[in-house]
C-alpha cells in the first residue's frame, strides 16, 4: 500500500514551492459555490476559535490585576497598563511587583532568553542529527534484528515520563551536571522515539538508486548519509527540527529540576514565578499572560522568518 503513495511525490525533490497538480482551485470553480463558501465559513470559525484565546491573553496582559475581577466582561483591557510587561522584563523592583499583584523574584529576561536559545538549539541539533543517524540505520541499512531493535526503541514512546524523571535526575546529579547545560540537554540530546520514528518513515521513501550510485562511486555509508541522505531530507528534517525546538522551548519540569542557577535558568522556569505562589492562591494573571506571549514570541518569530519554508516542508514530511 505504501508503494502506491510514495512515488507520487518523490521526496527527493524539495523545491520551495511545489507546483500544484490538478488542484483545488479548478475543482472549486467546477463545483457549486456554496460548498466553497461553507468550507471557508467553517475555516473562519476554526481560525477564530484558535485566535480568540490569544486575543484574550493579550487583553489580560495589558490589564491591571486588581481590576480583572471587577471588569470581567470588558472586552478591552481592564485598567490598561504596561506593568505586566515591565514585570516580565524585570524592570520593576520586588516591592513594585508585589504591589501590582505580581510575585517577586528577579527576572533577568535577556539572560534567560539566551539560556532558552542555547538549550533548545543544543537539544534540536543533537536530537535531530543523532535520531537521523539511527533512523538511517533502521530505514536504509539491512542487518539482522533490525525491526526488533526498532520496536524496542519505539516502545520508549510508551514509557511514562514520570517513571524516568527521578532516576534521570539522580544520574545527572551524580554526573555533577546539575545546573549545567549538558544536564538540561542530555536526556533528549541523543534521541527521542518520536524523532527516530518520524525520520525513519521518511527515509524509507528515498529511492535506493540514488544511494546506490553514490556507493558505486566509492562513497562510504557515512559519506552517503551526510552528503546524500541528509541534504535530500532537508524538508522533513526542518519540520522535525521546528517541532523539536518548540518542544524544547516549552519544556518546564525537567529544567525546573535541573537548571536553577541563573546561568542556566531558562525562560519557562523563570516565568514560572507568575504561577501561583501560595496554596489555593491565584496566579498573577496579567503577568502570566504577558510572560506567555513574550516567551512564545521568539519561536513565533522564528516561524514567521522561516515561514513558507517550514509550512511547505511540513507538507512534505513523507510519512508512509
Amino acid at each position, binding site marked *: *500500500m505504501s508503494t502506491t503513495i510514495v512515488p507520487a511525490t518523490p521526496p527527493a525533490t524539495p523545491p520551495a514551492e511545489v507546483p500544484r497538480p490538478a488542484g483545488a482551485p479548478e475543482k472549486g470553480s467546477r463545483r457549486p459555490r456554496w460548498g466553497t463558501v461553507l468550507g471557508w465559513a467553517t475555516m473562519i470559525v476554526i481560525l477564530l476559535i484558535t485566535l480568540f*484565546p490569544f486575543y484574550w491573553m493579550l487583553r*489580560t496582559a495589558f490589564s491591571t490585576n486588581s481590576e480583572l475581577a471587577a471588569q*470581567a466582561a470588558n472586552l478591552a483591557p481592564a485598567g490598561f497598563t504596561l506593568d505586566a510587561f515591565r514585570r516580565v522584563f524585570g524592570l520593576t523592583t520586588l516591592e513594585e511587583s508585589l504591589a501590582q499583584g505580581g510575585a517577586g523574584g528577579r527576572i533577568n529576561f535577556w539572560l534567560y532568553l539566551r539560556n532558552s536559545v542555547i538549550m533548545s538549539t543544543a537539544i534540536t541539533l543533537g536530537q535531530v542529527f*543523532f535520531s537521523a543517524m539511527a533512523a538511517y*540505520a533502521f530505514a536504509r541499512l539491512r542487518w539482522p534484528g533490525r525491526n526488533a531493535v526498532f520496536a524496542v526503541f519505539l516502545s520508549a514512546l510508551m514509557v511514562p515520563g514520570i517513571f524516568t524523571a527521578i532516576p534521570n535526575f539522580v544520574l545527572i546529579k551524580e554526573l555533577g551536571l546539575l545546573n549545567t547545560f549538558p544536564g538540561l540537554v542530555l536526556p533528549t540530546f541523543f534521541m527521542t522515539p518520536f524523532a527516530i520514528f518520524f525520520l525513519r518513515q521518511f527515509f524509507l521513501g528515498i529511492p535506493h538508486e540514488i544511494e546506490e550510485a553514490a556507493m558505486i562511486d566509492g562513497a562510504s555509508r557515512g559519506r552517503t548519509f551526510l552528503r546524500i541522505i541528509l541534504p535530500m531530507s532537508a524538508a522533513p528534517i526542518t519540520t522535525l527540527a521546528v517541532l523539536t525546538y518548540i518542544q524544547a522551548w516549552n519544556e518546564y519540569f525537567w529544567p525546573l529540576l535541573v537548571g536553577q542557577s541563573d546561568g542556566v535558568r531558562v525562560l519557562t522556569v523563570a516565568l514560572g514565578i507568575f504561577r501561583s505562589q501560595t496554596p489555593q492562591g491565584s496566579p498573577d494573571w496579567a503577568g*502570566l499572560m504577558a510572560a506567555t506571549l513574550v516567551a512564545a514570541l521568539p519561536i513565533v518569530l522564528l516561524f514567521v522568518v522561516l515561514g513558507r519554508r517550514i509550512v511547505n516542508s511540513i507538507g512534505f514530511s513523507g510519512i508512509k
Partner: protein
Amino acid sequence: MAVITTAAPAAARARPGRPRRPRYGDLRTALIFLIPATIGFVTFYLVPAVRGAWFSLTDYSVLAPPRFVGLDNYERLVQDPLFWNAMGVTAYYVVMNIGLQTVLAIAIAVLMQRLTRSAFVRGVVLLPYFVANVVVALVWFFMLDFQMGIVNVLLERVGLDPQAFFGDPALALPTIALINVWRHMGYTALLIFAGLQMIDQQVYEAAELDGAGPLRQFWSVTLPLLRPVLALVLVVTVTGSFQIFDTVAVTSAGGPVDATRVIYLYIYQLAFGQLDFGYASALSVVLFLVLLGVALLQLRLTRASESDTN
C-alpha cells in the same frame, strides 16, 4: 510492530532485481550509526525503566532504601478502586480527546488542501502549539471561570446559562479534553495535511471520472489512502493522550469527586505527594503495558484495513 513489518517488504518491492547483499553486510555500519541513539536510549529510557520495574516490586519511599515486597503492589492495585477509576477516567478522556481531535484535524487538513495554500492559515492553525501545556490550561481555566470567565459572560449575553465547566462532574473531563484538542488539532492537522499532499491527484481524477462526488471521494479515496499517516499520528497522539497530566493538575486537580483523577495524576500524587514510589512504579508499569497493547492494537487495525484499499 505492524508499521515496521509492512514497511520493510514495501521497501524491498521498491527495488526489484537488486543484487542481494551479504546477510550481515550492513551490521557494522548500522551499529556505528546507532551508537549515539543507543547511548541516549539505554541511559535515559531503558535503565530508568528497568529500575522502575524493580521498584514496582518494592516498598520504596525514595528517601529510604527500597524493600522487596514481591507482588504486593500489584495485588494492591487490583483491589484499589482509585486505580480502576483512574483507568476508566483516562480511557474516557482518550476517547473524547483523540476522537474529536482526529476528526477536526482531518477536517482542517482537507479544508486547507481544498481552500487555500496560505502559509498564514497554516501558521495560525499551528499557533496554539507554541504555547506550553500548563499555560494553555491556565488560560482556558481563566476564560472558563464560572463568574468572571469571558466564555460564560458571552454565553449569558446570548441568553444561555453559564456553565460550571470545571466544577460539574459531567463537564470537567470533556472540558479538559476540549482544551487539549484546541492545543493539538492544528499540529495534528498539519501532519495529516502532509499525508494528503502525498496522495496522487490522478486517483481523485479517476474517482471523479467515475462520477464520485466530493463526499464520496473523501470516504473512498482520501480516508483509505490516509491510513498509513493516521497510523503514525494516532500512535503518537494516543500515547500522549494517555499521559494527560498538566491540564488536569492546574485546573480541576482530579476533582470533582474523582471525575478527572486520570492515571498519570494519580501516579504523580502517589509518587510526590505520598512518597509511595513503589506503588507508583507498579501503576507506571501497568500504564506502560496498556500503552504498548493499545499501540499494537492500533497498528494491527490500521494494517488490517490496508488490504481493502489495495
